[in-house]
């Protein structure tokens, strides 16, 4: 039996109206622009209970809502870009450059804050890490792919 989640979610705003001014302010203050690319392609079969939730459509909606908050953020959709194997995905590109920041899945609920944080961080001229951390990372002599499994609740 199909649930009615889609009907209900269609009318839910991505951001609360009372929090939008602060979010706009943060994004407008970014020193470099950030591009968000929504990568779409074949999705994995969802777990029982996911119902009729359209992960790709919801991801597009969230990313476009985020980009609509500020001229410092742009978004576009790309079908199965090279190097992306899980869909939907969001690629976060500081100043339009792909430096390997990805969100695989739909960044809703608690994880919307992760995507927003990634955008703010990408909009900074330098990462907000300690000088010691930056030194250690600058000295890195091998490739590291860090995956962080998350849930929206």
């Amino acid at each position, binding site marked *: 039996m199909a649930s009615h989640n889609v009907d209900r979610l269609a009318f839910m705003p991505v951001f609360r109206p009372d929090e939008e001014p602060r979010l706009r302010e943060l994004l407008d203050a970014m020193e470099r622009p950030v591009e968000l690319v929504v990568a779409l392609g074949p*999705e*994995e079969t*969802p*777990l029982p209970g*996911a119902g009729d939730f359209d*992960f790709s459509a919801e991801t597009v909606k969230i990313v476009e809502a985020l980009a609509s908050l500020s001229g410092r953020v742009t978004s576009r959709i790309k079908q199965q870009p090279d190097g992306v194997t*899980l869909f939907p995905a969001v690629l*976060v590109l*500081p100043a339009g450059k792909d*430096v*390997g*920041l*990805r*969100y*695989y*899945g*739909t*960044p809703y609920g608690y*994880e919307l804050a*992760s995507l927003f*944080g*990634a955008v703010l*961080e*990408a909009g*900074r001229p*330098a*990462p*907000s*890490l*300690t000088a*010691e*951390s*930056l030194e*250690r*990372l*600058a000295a*890195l*002599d*091998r*490739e*590291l*792919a*860090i*995956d*962080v*499994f*998350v*849930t*929206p609740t």
Partner: protein
Amino acid sequence: MLLAYKAALASPRVTAAAIEAGEFPRLADEMNVWAVPSIAVNGVPQWDGAVPERVFLDRVLAPSFA
């Protein structure tokens, strides 16, 4: 999650991905994800839970990933 993104922004040798475990259950199973956040480095499961910046770097920069 943000620490991983910051690390990727700080070094061209680092990439960082958040993966929604519920949307990719097969991958989450393969990586033995039982709790979140669950961190894997170079495809190998490492630890669960948020840690401070210094500890995070100690772990991801550990020589075992050389």
